[in-house]
């Protein structure tokens, strides 16, 4: 041990960069396998865009689990609700969607996304108070309650909007691709990447630069200690839960636009994907969640291109491989 002088900066914990290098290594490894650089670039861009969307949806779930040990099996419901609420704004304003002007389009999309986030967030408040609070600390009942919540939410959506698939066309200015030489990158994917990065940076800034973030990170690591210091962690948790739900709603809108359709069953498929991401990343870790989302998207895109048959089970294989390497996910932040 070396002695520290009074003015020396505190020793920083070693940064664990192996997980960060992993997606980069995967991407580089794929260049020779895919062969053509232009398809590689297209696929990489697609992976990043898909990964960002998944990250937006999964980030809330992982924080909620890390902070309060609550696993919300109904998280997918917020995604579907977000997508459906967006149709409320987008359907009556279809003319502005079809207008060939980026700003007109965004002027419609932004309020739609905000409304979705607001509704999902309020729904999160209700779910937390009604479904999770009464069974707080009992894992089995939490899983059952939130699964019940998922059923009710899905059925209510069907009752209100009908069981059919609702089309959700992309705005005109976001259709098509940017062409750089022989590389084509869909415009909407660029937007998705930008939003995803913005959300990631915002979450990182809040978590690492504010007192609120300090409390959340401390709560993830050791809840009792934060409570012992006199902070009302339940209120903190409620805030995180609502934010997570709102982000899931935003992710739902983005995903619906990506697929250009809305259906309540989208929550089922995405729930599985999100769980895999959260497990891979390590429960409670935002950085791990980010890397996990990109890895899952990469496996889906590269895998779908190289061996389409394998794409079905590729996510499971990825999960198994990661858990063999690090049994508690890429970053194990909780002490549980």
């Amino acid at each position: 041990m070396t002695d520290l002088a009074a003015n020396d900066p505190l020793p920083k914990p070693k940064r664990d960069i192996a997980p960060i290098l992993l997606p980069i290594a995967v991407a580089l490894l794929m260049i020779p396998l895919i062969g053509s650089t232009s398809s590689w670039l297209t696929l990489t861009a697609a992976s990043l865009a898909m990964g960002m969307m998944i990250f937006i949806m999964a980030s809330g779930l992982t924080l909620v689990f890390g902070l309060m040990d609550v696993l919300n099996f109904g998280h997918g419901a917020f995604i579907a609700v977000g997508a459906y609420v967006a149709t409320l704004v987008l359907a009556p304003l279809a003319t502005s969607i079809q207008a060939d002007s980026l700003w007109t389009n965004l002027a419609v999309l932004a309020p739609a996304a905000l409304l979705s986030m607001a509704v999902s967030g309020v729904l999160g408040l209700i779910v937390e108070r009604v479904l999770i609070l009464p069974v707080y600390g009992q894992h089995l009942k939490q899983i059952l309650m939130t699964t019940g919540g998922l059923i009710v939410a899905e059925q209510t959506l069907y009752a209100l909007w009908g069981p059919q698939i609702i089309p959700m066309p992309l705005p005109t200015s976001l259709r098509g691709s940017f062409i750089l030489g022989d590389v084509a990158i869909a415009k909407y994917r660029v937007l998705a990447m930008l939003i995803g990065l913005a959300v990631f940076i915002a979450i990182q800034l809040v978590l690492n630069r504010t007192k609120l973030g300090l409390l959340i990170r401390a709560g993830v690591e050791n809840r009792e200690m934060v409570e012992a210091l006199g902070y009302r962690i339940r209120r903190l948790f409620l805030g995180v839960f609502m934010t997570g739900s709102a982000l899931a709603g935003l992710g739902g809108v983005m995903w619906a636009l990506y697929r250009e359709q809305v259906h309540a069953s989208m929550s089922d498929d995405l729930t599985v994907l999100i769980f895999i991401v959260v497990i891979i990343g390590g429960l409670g870790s935002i950085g791990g969640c980010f890397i996990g989302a990109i890895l899952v998207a990469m496996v889906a895109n590269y895998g779908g291109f190289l061996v389409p048959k394998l794409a079905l089970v590729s996510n499971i294989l990825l999960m198994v491989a990661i858990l063999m390497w690090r049994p508690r996910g890429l970053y194990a932040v909780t002490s549980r």
Partner: protein
Amino acid sequence: MMILSGDPPRSRILTLVLVVIILALAATPFLFPGAKALNVAAKICVFAALVASYDLLLGYTGSVSFAHTMFYGIGSYAIAIALYGMGPNWAAVATGIIVGLPLAALLALAIGLFSLRVAAIFFAMITLAVASAFQVLALQLSWLTGGEDGRSFQLPELLRPGTVLISKNLFGFEVNGRILTFYLVFAVSALMILALLRVVNSPFGRVLQAIRENRFRAEALGFRTVFHLTYANCLAALVAAGAGILNALWLRYAGPDTSLSFSIMLDILLMIVIGGMGTIYGAIIGATIFILAQNYLQSLMGVASKAASEAGLPLLPGLLHPDRWLLWLGLLFIASVYFFPTGVVGRLRHGGSDKGRGASH
């Protein structure tokens, strides 16, 4: 008492209800004529066994698995593919059983070894992921499974509706191959439920409950918890595959909707929670209530929905539409987890008070 493994229902009303259900099921071919009643009765038998096997996991070990329909589907598909490929003979039935059951057990072993070491919550998520991958796989391997269409097949001669075993003029009832199949389903389901009752009341079952109550302590007492949990997982998978075999035999069909879909998993969860976790008897009650509701409540809702739309009420017609019956069951599910977590059986056993040993912690 021997046959119930020394674990009687322990409540007069519960005993009465169970006896009524079992007698009604046994007498369905003679009491309630018509194909629908027989279908409902067969489905209740199959699901009672399936839910009881899930109870071994959820109620007795406290681990939530979302892969239970996968094992059910393996059983269904094994017998369907065998009978479809080898023709309607008993060798095909035997092949389906010999392939299906070990396959389910092996897969359960693999999942168990991989994920039961970690927390219950990991197990739930991993089983969900594996089950959904399996579902996609079954849909994609259409040369084997028939894809979305599934596989229809013929039963061996003896079990066909055309085979008359006892003609009508003997007792006034015709006993044909269909009714024989029903009794096969009934008897095998009953045997499986009794076997599960035996398992949960054995020393092994006690260890499972100890693990449920306090895994750390069970481990400290020297029990190899991973071994016990994996073993329970394999047993449950075996019974689920058995129920799947019965289901396929009854329907003469195996397809994604009837034997693999995620909605069956939710149905199982609803049945077990409504019936009562950790009791095995709850499975019978839950399956009966749920399937009766599924088949008869829906028509009632149809009437109500129509009345509401004629009265010009907003929203209600949509909410009461027969296809939305899961909404109401979902609400019932939440309410029962919240207000009576021990389910119908727990309620009846403890006379309405929750003082008794809750089975759902």
